[in-house]
Structures are given as C-alpha cells and as structure tokens.
C-alpha cells in the first residue's frame, strides 16, 4: 500500500543544512499498522510529514498504491491518505463548529450533496452522537476533540491514516478509549495506519511492525511480538524498552557509587 524507498529530508543548505531524515526505507501492506518510534528529533514525525507533503522529499521515493507521489500532492492523494495530528487543541479551528469542520473536506472534494448523512455517519463512527454536530471545539473535552479530528480524517473514506502522536496530549484513561477506537476502525474499515509515537507500549499495542529511529536514521525494524518477548537486538531499542518500564532505582547504583 505504502512504500518508502531511501527517503531523505533536508532542510537548509550549506552551514545551516540539517538532515532530518537520512535514507529511511520501509514498506506497509494494505490493512497493516506500522509504527515509527523514537525520541524527539529522531525524524519520525518528519517522515509522516514528508509522506503527506508537509515536508520536502529531498531524495528517495514515496509510493502510494504503487504510484509515486507528485509534488504538490493531488486531490486523489488526499482522498487516499489523511492525517491526524498530535494536539487536538491546536488542530481544530476554534471558531468552526464540528459540522463546519467535518464538511470542509467534503467541500474541497466537491461532495457536498450528501454532506448531512455523511457527517452524522462520521460522528457515529467515532462514537459521538448527533448532539455534537453544532458544538464548538471549546465545548468538547480533549478526547472528544481527538475523535472529531479522526472523524474529519475519515469522512473522505481514505485508505491510509497517518497518526502523529494521536494520544500523547490526552490523559491515560482517554488514551485507552482513543486506542480502542482506532483499533475498531481499522478492523471495520480495513484501514492502513502509520503511527508515530514516543511511547513503545502504545505502538506495540496498535501496530504489528515498527521502525525504531534515532537522529534521522532507522535503527532497527522489529515486530511488536519481538518487543513483548524482549527480543530487541539493538542496544538503543533495549534502552527505550527499559525507560518505558518506569524509573528503576537499581540502575542508578553505579552513579551513587561514583558520587560516594
């Protein structure tokens, strides 16, 4: 479904040149969920942005459904690929009602004639009732806002959903609801996901395969299964796994020995 070959993203030139993504390749099949994990500055979000045209593709190729993408991206591309952003407080227009937010993609693609039924259906899909249709973002909680952002992405019936840290701005209990929703939607609608997150547990929950990134480079491609069994071969992946288990006093022993 999605094929990334030797992707490079470069910002600036000369002394100011920054190689945000260096030679990253991966392949995602139809209906699969693929995770990108790494710390901030590892280039994981930049990969997503390069796929949907928000960052320049400086080298390599991005193929969707076997066809290389063009810059600027075509309308047909956005009908296939949609993105959900990290912060639902920032990604919804504060002065647009839910109805207007959801009808915008339909208007862009000239499909306004059955807008009402599709908006109501989109709301139902993300587990919100019709009573939410004429609310403003400030009248919604964080989790409800993220549901609206997901509904907006789904209303065009895309095949691929790019998820950029979809739960990191949310509380733990709300995160669980959104993860369940994403899981359900993928099964029901046969979607393909690319999920970017710094949280290994979230990625392992939602995705089958994942790529660990660091400093713009791919460190290791592994499976959620391997993460669970602790079979990560790479040292960096190991340290991420350890950090995600919470703080451990045991590993600080050498440091205190030095201080004493």
């Amino acid at each position, binding site marked *: 479904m999605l094929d990334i070959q030797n992707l490079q993203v470069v910002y600036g030139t000369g002394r100011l040149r920054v190689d945000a993504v260096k030679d990253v390749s991966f392949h995602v099949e139809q209906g699969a969920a693929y995770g990108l994990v790494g*710390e*901030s500055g590892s280039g994981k979000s930049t990969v997503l942005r390069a796929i949907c045209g928000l960052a320049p593709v400086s080298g390599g190729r991005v193929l969707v459904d076997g066809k290389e993408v063009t810059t600027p991206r075509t309308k047909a591309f956005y009908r296939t690929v949609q993105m959900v952003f990290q912060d639902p407080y920032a990604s919804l227009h504060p002065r647009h009602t839910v109805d207007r937010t959801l009808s915008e993609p339909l208007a862009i693609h000239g499909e306004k004639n059955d807008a009402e039924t599709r908006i109501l259906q989109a709301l139902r899909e993300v587990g919100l009732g019709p009573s939410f249709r004429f609310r403003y973002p400030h009248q919604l909680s*964080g989790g409800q806002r993220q549901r609206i952002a997901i509904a907006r992405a789904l209303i065009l019936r895309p095949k691929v959903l790019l998820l950029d840290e979809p739960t990191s701005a949310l*509380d*733990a*209990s709300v*995160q*669980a*609801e959104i*993860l*369940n929703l994403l*899981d*359900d939607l993928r099964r029901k609608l046969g979607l393909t996901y690319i999920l970017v997150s*710094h*949280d*290994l*547990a*979230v990625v*392992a*929950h939602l995705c089958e395969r994942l790529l660990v990134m660091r400093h713009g480079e791919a460190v290791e491609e592994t499976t*959620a299964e391997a*993460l*669970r069994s602790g079979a990560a071969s790479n040292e960096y992946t190991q*340290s*991420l*796994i350890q*950090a*995600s*288990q*919470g*703080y*451990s*006093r045991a*590993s*600080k022993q050498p*440091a*205190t020995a030095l*201080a004493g």
Partner: protein
Amino acid sequence: MTKPLLDVEDLRVRFHLRTGTVEAVRGVSFQLGRERLGIVGESGSGKSQTGRAILGLTPPPGEVTAKRLAFDGIDLLTASNRTLRTLRGGRISMVMQDPKYSLNPVMTIGEQIIEAYQAHAKAGRNEARDKALAMLEAVKMRDPGRVFALYPHEVSGGMGQRAMIAMMLVTDPDLLIADEPTSALDVTVSMEVLRILDELVTERGMGLIFISHDLKLVSSFCDRVLVMYAGRVVEELEAKNLREAQHPYTQGLMRCLPTLVDDVRPLPTLNRDPAWAL
C-alpha cells in the same frame, strides 16, 4: 514520629468566576516528612493547584483556605509576604514542567543560578559563582563552565531542566515541589533527570512532592502516592503496594495503560462513577 516538614489539613482552592465558584481543590490533607511523596491525577484533578497553593502561587482570583497549612511550624496562610519570600526559593522551591518557559530567556544560565543564590544567601559574587558551578556539576553537566555562559535557548530540553533543578537546589531547600518535571522530556532523558533528582534528594535529605499524571512513573519513583480525583484525594498508598490499590479509580487508571508485557484488546476503559467526585 518527628514533627512533619509540611502539614496540610483540609486545603481548599476556590476560583470565584462570573459563572460561579469553581472549587479546584476540595479538602486535601496530608503530612510530609523527609520523603518522596507523589501526587497523581488526570488533568483537572487539582494536583498542580495543590502544589501551587503550598507556595502561595495560586493565581488570582483564586482563594486558598485550609484548617492548617504549616511548613516546619510556620503557618503559610498567615505568614507575611516577607516571610513567604524568604521561604520561597530558599527553603521551599519548585521545579516547573517546561524549562523553555520557566527560565529567563535573556539571562545566561549561570547568572540565573547566581541570582537565585544571592537572593537567599549573603554571598559575594565569587562565592556565588563557585556555588553555581558546583551545582551545575552536581546535576551532571558535562562542561559546567560552558553551560554557565549559555542562554536557555542554546541548551536542549534535558539540559534546561537540569539547569532548572540546579537553580532550585542551590539554596539547599528543605522541600522541593516538582510539577511534572519530566513530561516535556524524552523518555531516556527524563530517566536521567529523575536519576539526578533522586540522588540529590536522597543525599540532602529533602522532602519531595512529585506531581505527575504518570502513575507508573510516580509509583516507581516515590515512597508514597496520593491519588487525586476531582479535587480530592481518593486514595493514599505506599508506592510499592500500588498493585493492591483499593479505589476503583486507581485500579481503572492502572488497567487502562497499554503495556509491553501483555496484549489486552480492547483496553479496559475507565467508567467514571459520579460517586467518586462526591
């Protein structure tokens, strides 16, 4: 038991707004010795307002009341502003969430630490400078001399947060309040910052209040945990006994986190019982 460092009884923080009174903290009581206390809760549970109220930093139009709010025998509610000023930053200090916003952008990191030190200790310029450098070394800066002369925008998030900790600990406080000190940082960096914090707190025998939304992190870092919901403490437990939590809210919070170890699908979600907020 010796006299507690901090004694809080029935703390309430209210905001009188045009639309009515909102009570953000509704009767929180706890005592703190020289230990690590974690306060956990979701956004809006009143955990940060509790920390701020202790320092007298409740933003207007907030109103703080309590049966007792005493630090080392000093009543913080009736203390003069002058006393509060010597306490704040001197004997009680606070590490905020994001070093990007809490450091002064137009002052070098070294100058800021010197300023914090000289505000509370009678010290000459050279002594303050030595102290600041020693402190930067204590937070494991690789090259304290270089970091001393840097501006906050020139350092990474992890370094900024360590500089912040250095500034807050330079006056040797008895109590440190850390409000989400690592949530703006990457996982591996935040482990490093926590390790430094842990060492310094243990070494100096300080009391620590660690405010966070991350139940897993708090339970692995603190000795005791208060779980807050809707402005109240719903449960208080030893961190190591977190698995035996009694309150359905705490249990729900524990269960709804995805884990690497097992694959539960769908994740159990939290069914909020209105009775919890009563």
